[in-house]
């Protein structure tokens, strides 16, 4: 517990109940664990704004790896935040380490979730996740983690963290991938090859063969289209500017990062150079204030090549767009130098700088009807034939619209309560429907007055 911090609250009640006196009453901090007075010495994100500050930086495992020269550089560095959420890995080690099988990856959208009913509090996932993204709720005795805001994602909304990000730096989109190839890719021998291996798992949604295969497996049209418009696909595969966080953990993380181009332009200008000239920029990439080696340890298992490539692309985009901005001629050679075309430069610039809400988040809503058809064939109600009691009328427990809920021990009470509640539409109260009992699907009889002419 000491490694984390002791949760605390303040004695707010004292503020209200303290008798009138000479001094202003204060709310003292109380530990939520022991209930005793406490002194706040440590907490989550304690030193974050100082990039870990003196206390944390000393323990940074990456700094231990990079050379002393880099270390010196790093100490001069400005801060940069690395916001982290659960990676919703393709090969989640949290799930693999769960003895109860309570952590699962959803087949439809890949979200990794903890089944709170199955979790038995083994706590293996807490140590199993290399990103430290599973939390043990010591009140309930169960593991908890980021849910990727699945209720929002299911209806096509971005996660709250993305939606509220002031810097508009989070992008969400679909990626089609070959689930059968994941294990093999994760087993790639060389750590520095893992970045390429993970990219090889993703399937090109523009490839007609992939589209055909997706259709065959029952992936709906709007999902395929969503995958084609996916900003994430563009950032990872087309422009190759996003990199996975710590690919060497082999969990195939799925939250990718665009490494920061630290304030290189200003730095160059201060030394009397043209900060936006491409040649100068390229040279400067190697001398960035956040050392490339450091970024490489974060994003490519220590191989500086991918990171340099990304930074050069970003720098090139800058140089290219400056000419556009100043009304000069577009310089294709800048784009070519980093293996892109001018058109791609423009598109990438658009996506990174001015993309609007619906371009940054391309999230088709989940389809309840396929999930039902695919997974729960057995629960399809046998009374659900034309004219039968399953046809929108009354199930065994009265007023039901849409598909009747199959009866089971677990929902017996709910259905029974529904039937016994007030205001059931019986013949004498035709035309009255208890909307509280209505589940929102279909049209229960009596919701609208009967038609006069029955045509």
């Amino acid at each position, binding site marked *: 517990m000491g490694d984390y911090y002791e949760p605390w609250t303040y004695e707010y009640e004292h503020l209200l109940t303290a008798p009138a006196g000479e001094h202003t009453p204060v709310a003292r901090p109380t530990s939520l664990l022991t209930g005793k007075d406490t002194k706040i010495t440590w907490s989550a994100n304690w030193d974050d704004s100082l990039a870990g500050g003196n206390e944390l930086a000393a323990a940074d495992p990456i700094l231990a790896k990079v050379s002393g020269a880099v270390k010196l550089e790093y100490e001069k560095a400005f801060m940069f935040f690395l916001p982290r959420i659960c990676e919703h890995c393709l090969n989640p080690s949290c799930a693999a380490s769960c003895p109860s099988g309570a952590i699962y990856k959803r087949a439809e959208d890949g979200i990794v979730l903890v089944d709170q009913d199955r979790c038995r509090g083994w706590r293996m996932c807490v140590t199993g996740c290399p990103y430290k993204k599973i939390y043990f709720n010591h009140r309930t005795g169960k593991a908890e983690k980021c849910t990727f805001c699945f209720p929002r994602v299911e209806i096509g909304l971005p996660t709250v963290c993305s939606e509220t990000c002031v810097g508009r730096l989070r992008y969400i989109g679909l990626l089609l991938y070959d689930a059968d190839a994941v294990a093999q890719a994760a087993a790639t021998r060389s750590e520095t090859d893992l970045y390429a291996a993970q990219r090889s798992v993703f399937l090109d949604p523009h490839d007609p063969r992939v589209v055909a295969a997706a259709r065959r497996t029952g992936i709906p049209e709007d999902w395929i289209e969503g995958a084609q418009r996916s900003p994430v696909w563009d950032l990872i595969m087309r422009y190759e500017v996003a990199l996975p966080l710590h690919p060497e953990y082999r969990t195939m993380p799925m939250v990718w990062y665009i490494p920061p181009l630290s304030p290189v332009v200003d730095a160059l200008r201060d030394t009397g150079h043209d900060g936006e000239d491409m040649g100068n920029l390229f040279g400067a990439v190697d001398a960035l204030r956040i050392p490339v080696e450091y970024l490489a340890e974060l994003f490519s298992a220590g191989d500086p090549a991918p990171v340099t490539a990304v930074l050069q692309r970003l720098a090139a985009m800058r140089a290219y767009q400056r000419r556009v901005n100043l009304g000069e001629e577009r310089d294709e050679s800048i784009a070519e130098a980093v293996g892109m075309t001018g058109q791609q430069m423009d598109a990438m610039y658009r996506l990174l700088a001015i993309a609007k809400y619906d371009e940054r988040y391309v999230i088709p809503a989940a389809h309840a009807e396929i999930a039902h058809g695919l997974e*729960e064939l057995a629960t399809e109600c046998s009374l659900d034939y034309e004219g039968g009691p399953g046809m929108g009328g009354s199930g065994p427990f009265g007023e039901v619209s849409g598909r009747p809920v199959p009866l089971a021990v677990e929902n017996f009470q709910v259905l029974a309560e529904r039937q016994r509640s007030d205001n059931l539409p019986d013949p004498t109260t035709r035309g009255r429907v208890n909307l509280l009992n209505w589940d929102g699907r279909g049209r229960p009889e009596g919701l609208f007055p009967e038609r006069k002419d029955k045509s």
Partner: protein
Amino acid sequence: MNILLWAILPYATVLTFVLGTVWRYRYDKFGWTTRSSQLYESAVLRWGSPMFHFGVLLVLLGHIGGLAVPKSWTQAAGISEHAYHLTAVFLGTVAGVFTVVGLGILIARRRLVGPVFTATTRNDKAMYVVLAGTLLLGLFATVRANALGDGYDYRETVSPWLRSVFYLQPKTELMTGVPIGFKLHVLAALALFAFWPFTRLVHAFSAPVGYLTRPYVVYRSRDTRPGARRTGRGWDGPPTASNRGRR
């Protein structure tokens, strides 16, 4: 009185145990956990917990051996009463000491370590009383019988009685002559089993057997009809100063 204690009570216990477990499994899966306190304190736990758990597993094995296997079987296998008694006492003492010391460490830790104590519910405390009581009574009965004389051969009385309960023909008369220590131990054990499904002890049934056969990564499909089931018990919100420790 005999019938009540040695025929009705055991069946009531079995019934509560089985039905209680089924009920808990159906309606309170969310509460099915050890509610581990390792997060608060692990140095003492690292010693106490394995001691108690391995000890108690040995004790369980010993009980199965002593209660379920009829005396005639071991004798047919050529093990004399004396030899049996010696091994039983020896193994039993080792296991018993481990268990009791382990439990002692755990209970002391529970009381003395602040955060662990505040995380202890009333249910836990009652459970500890019954559990520790059963263990101590058992130990006490055995030690007394062995100290006073040659030990008591429960395999003539208690064991056949317990088996007869499971044959559905309880022979209550077998229990009449049993020393009071053993009687109390049996009664405490019955209470423990009746209480079992309603405490954190249910975690004993959570062996990760499926882990051996399942794929590493579990894929699962979206729940199709949220709301069709009544939502079960869930987290009751973040703790505040006033509701802390209230359960």
